[in-house]
C-alpha cells in the first residue's frame, strides 16, 4: 500500500510564533530581526511590510530606509520552540505517527485514513486552537507534500497517488530543498525545474554529480521510500518567553503570564489533558534563575485559576530581581471525570478545590494544610499530613451506622511545660502551674482534685529517641480535665492533652 502523508506548514514561522506570543503586533507592519555579531538582518516580514518592498535578507538600515514606521523586533527562539511543540501536539492528536520536520513543519501519516479531507479540516482547526495557522498538503512523499503545503496558501492541496512527478514538474529546483551548489551546476546544464531533472537518466546523473544529485532526482520524481520518524510527546509541556527588557512589577508580569497560560492550557486541552502541577522558571536580571512549583489538588485547565495561583505565589514571595525570561512547565494528567448524581452526596468542582488548596497553602504555608494521616507508634502527639486528594464522590448516599459519641482528647501541640507539686505515698501530683508565659488557653494552674495514674508509656528504648513517660489524668479546680506526664529521663512535667 502506498504511503500517504499530510504536511502541516506554518507560513512565515518566526513571525507567526512571535505573533502567537504577542497577538497585539498582528496588525502592525512587523519584521523579525536576526542578529549575528554586530549586524542585524531581516528574517521574516509581514504582508504590509512586504508590500513596501522589505524582503528577508535586507539589513535593518535598508528596511528602515524603505519604511521608517517598521516595527523591527528580535527573533524569539523560545517562542518558536513553544510554537513548534504546540504544532506537534496538535498533530499528534490526529495521527499515531507524526514527524518533526523542522521549524513550523510537521508530517502526519495518513495511512488507512478514510476521509483525508475531514482529517485535514480537523487538523486546521486543532492548529488554530493552539494559536497558529497551517497550510496543508497531502501527497505520497515528503518533498512533494511540503511543496504542496507551501503552494496551498490556506486551501488544502491533495495530490493523487502517482501524480507527484507531474505536480512537481513546473517547480524550480530551489523548492526541492536542493543544495545551492547543485542547483547552480544543474542550471549550467540548462536544468532549472523539477520536471527537467526528473526526465534525466538516474544512473548517469549519479555518475556525474554524485549521490546528492541522485537524491534530488528521486525527489523530483516524487519518490520517497523512507518511513516517517516518530515524534515522542514530551512528558512536560512548556511555554517559554525571552523578554526584551526586565519586568520589575507584578502587574507587568501578568500581562505576559496570562497569554502564556492561555496558550499552554489550549495545548493541554488539544491533548485531552489537564494540568496537575505547574512550574515557573524565572530568569533574573542580570543572571540567575528562580524556580517555583504550584501543585494543584485536582487537574485543571482553568487559566483564571492558575493565574490567580501564580499571583498569590509571587505576591507572597516576590522574585529577588527583575525577570528577563520566563518558562511555564505544565505536568499533564488525565482530567477527573465527575458524574453528577441525583441521589449521592453533593459533588465538588475540581478547579475550585485546586484553587482553594493552593490559596490556603500560600496564605499559611503548605505544611499547615492537607489530609491528616495515621502514623504508627505510641507517642500521643504523632501526626502527619499528606496532599489533599479526596476520592470521587459516592454515587449514592450510604446508610450510616450510628457511631456512639465518645469523649475526645484535644492534643496540645507543643506540649506545655509544667511545675507540679507531688505529695503522698505513693506519690501523686497535687497541684500544677505553667512554668513559662503561655497564652490564656494554655495556662494551667491550681489544685488537682482527682489524679488518676500513672500509666507508663515506653517506646524506642533501643534507639537514641527513647521515650519513657508516666501519664496521669487530672481534674483541676477549674473543671478542666488534663492529661499530664512526667518525662522519666529528665524528670520534667508536661501537659499534652485536654479531655474535651
Amino acid at each position: 500500500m502506498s504511503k500517504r502523508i499530510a504536511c502541516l506548514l506554518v507560513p512565515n514561522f518566526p513571525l507567526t510564533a512571535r505573533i502567537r506570543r504577542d497577538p497585539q503586533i498582528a496588525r502592525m507592519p512587523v519584521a523579525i530581526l536576526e542578529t549575528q555579531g554586530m549586524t542585524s538582518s531581516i528574517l521574516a516580514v509581514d504582508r504590509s511590510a512586504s508590500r513596501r518592498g522589505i524582503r528577508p535578507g535586507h539589513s535593518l538600515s535598508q528596511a528602515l530606509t524603505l519604511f521608517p514606521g517598521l516595527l523591527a523586533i528580535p527573533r524569539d527562539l523560545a517562542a518558536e520552540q513553544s510554537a513548534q511543540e504546540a504544532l506537534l501536539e496538535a498533530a499528534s492528536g490526529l495521527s499515531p505517527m507524526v514527524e518533526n520536520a523542522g521549524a513550523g513543519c510537521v508530517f502526519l501519516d495518513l495511512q488507512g485514513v478514510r476521509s483525508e479531507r475531514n482529517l485535514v479540516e480537523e487538523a486546521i482547526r486543532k492548529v488554530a486552537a493552539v494559536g497558529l495557522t497551517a497550510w496543508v498538503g497531502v501527497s505520497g512523499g515528503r518533498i512533494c507534500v511540503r511543496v504542496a503545503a507551501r503552494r496551498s496558501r490556506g486551501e488544502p492541496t491533495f495530490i493523487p497517488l502517482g501524480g507527484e512527478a507531474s505536480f512537481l514538474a513546473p517547480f524550480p529546483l530551489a523548492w526541492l530543498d536542493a543544495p545551492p551548489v547543485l542547483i547552480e551546476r544543474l542550471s549550467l546544464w540548462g536544468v532549472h525545474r523539477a520536471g527537467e531533472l526528473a526526465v534525466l537518466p538516474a544512473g548517469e546523473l549519479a555518475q556525474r554529480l554524485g549521490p546528492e544529485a541522485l537524491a534530488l532526482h528521486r525527489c523530483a520524481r516524487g519518490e520517497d521510500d523512507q518511513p516517517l520518524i516518530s515524534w515522542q510527546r514530551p512528558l512536560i509541556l512548556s511555554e517559554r518567553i525571552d523578554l526584551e527588557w526586565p519586568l520589575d512589577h507584578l502587574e507587568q508580569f501578568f500581562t505576559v503570564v496570562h497569554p502564556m497560560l492561555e496558550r499552554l492550557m489550549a495545548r493541554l486541552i488539544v491533548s485531552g489533558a489537564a494540568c496537575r502541577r505547574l512550574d515557573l522558571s524565572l530568569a533574573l536580571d542580570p543572571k540567575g534563575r528562580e524556580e517555583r512549583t504550584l501543585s494543584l489538588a485536582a487537574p485543571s485547565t482553568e487559566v483564571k485559576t492558575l493565574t490567580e495561583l501564580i499571583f498569590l505565589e509571587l505576591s507572597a514571595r516576590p522574585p529577588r530581581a527583575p525577570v528577563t525570561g520566563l518558562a511555564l512547565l505544565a505536568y499533564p494528567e488525565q482530567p477527573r471525570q465527575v458524574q453528577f448524581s441525583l441521589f449521592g452526596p453533593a459533588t465538588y468542582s475540581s478547579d475550585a478545590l485546586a484553587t482553594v488548596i493552593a490559596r490556603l497553602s500560600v496564605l499559611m504555608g503548605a505544611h499547615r494544610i492537607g489530609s491528616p494521616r495515621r502514623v504508627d507508634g505510641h507517642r500521643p502527639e504523632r501526626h502527619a499530613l499528606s496532599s489533599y486528594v479526596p476520592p470521587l464522590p459516592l454515587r449514592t448516599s450510604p446508610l450510616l451506622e450510628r457511631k456512639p459519641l465518645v469523649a475526645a482528647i484535644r492534643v496540645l501541640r507543643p506540649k506545655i511545660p509544667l511545675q507540679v507539686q507531688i505529695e503522698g505515698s505513693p506519690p501523686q501530683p497535687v497541684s500544677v502551674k505553667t512554668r513559662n508565659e503561655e497564652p490564656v488557653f494554655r495556662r494551667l494552674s491550681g489544685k488537682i482534685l482527682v489524679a488518676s495514674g500513672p500509666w507508663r508509656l515506653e517506646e524506642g528504648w533501643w534507639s537514641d529517641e527513647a521515650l519513657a513517660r508516666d501519664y496521669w489524668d487530672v481534674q483541676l479546680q477549674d473543671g478542666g480535665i488534663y492529661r499530664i506526664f512526667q518525662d522519666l529521663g529528665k524528670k520534667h512535667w508536661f501537659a499534652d492533652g485536654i479531655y474535651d
Partner: protein
Amino acid sequence: MSTYPFSSNPFPKPPPFPGLGVITGSELLRRQERRSTWVTHIPLLDRFEEGGLPRGILIEISGKISSGRFAMDLAVLSAATRAGELAAFIDLGSHLDPQAADALGIDLTRLLWVRPSEAKEAAHSAEMILNSGFSLVVLDLPERPRPGFNEGVWIRLSRAARDQKAVLWVSTLIPLTGSAADLTVRADRSRPLWAGDRNAPKLLMGLSVDLSIKRRRGTRRELSGKIFLPMAKDIIDVKAHCLSAGS
C-alpha cells in the same frame, strides 16, 4: 388463577416502569429533601432538628474547657465524611489526633485539616473553603480571639454557608457569632465520671455534659438535656489492666 384481594380498588395502579429503577418526580423530590438534611449523630441535636441538620446554616457551639465541644466537633466530621461529603476542620492550635479521628470513623481522605496560626487566618480560611464547595466546615477556636478580630466576619460566613448550602459549625469558648448563628448550642460545664472508691485508684470513665440548644431564627424553640461522652472502650480496658497489674 390468582385474584385480587377484596378492596375498594381491585385494580391498584402499578408503579411506573416496574423493575427498571425509574421513580416518579414526587419521589425524587422527597429523596432530595431527605438529602438536604444531615444527621449529626449527636442525639439531642438530631432530636431538636427532627432527623438532621438543614444545610446552609451556621451553628455555634460554645462551652468551656472539657465541656465535650471537641468530641462533638469530631462527631459531626465523622458523620459528614462517612456520608461521602467533603469536610474541612479548621483547627486553630492543631489539636487533632489523626489516630483518634480515624478510630471515631472519620474518613481521613475526605477531611481537609487546616491549621491556621491565628483567629483572623482561621476565619479567612473558613470563608475560602465554604466558597469552594465543601459541605461541612468545622471552625474550632479554643480561645477568645485577640482584640482587633473583626466581629462582622460571622455575618459574611453565615451568608457564605447559606449561599453554598453548607454547614458551618463554629466551636468556641464563649458565644461569638451573635445574631449570625442560626442555631446555638451551649455545652455547660461537664461532670467527669471517675470509677474507683475513695482510696482506690481512680479511672476516668467519661464526661457528662449539659446541652441547651436554641434556634435564633424562625420558631424560637429550645431544648435542654444531658449527654454522656464515655471514654473509648479500648482506652478504659488498657488503663484498667494497668491499674489491676499495679495494685
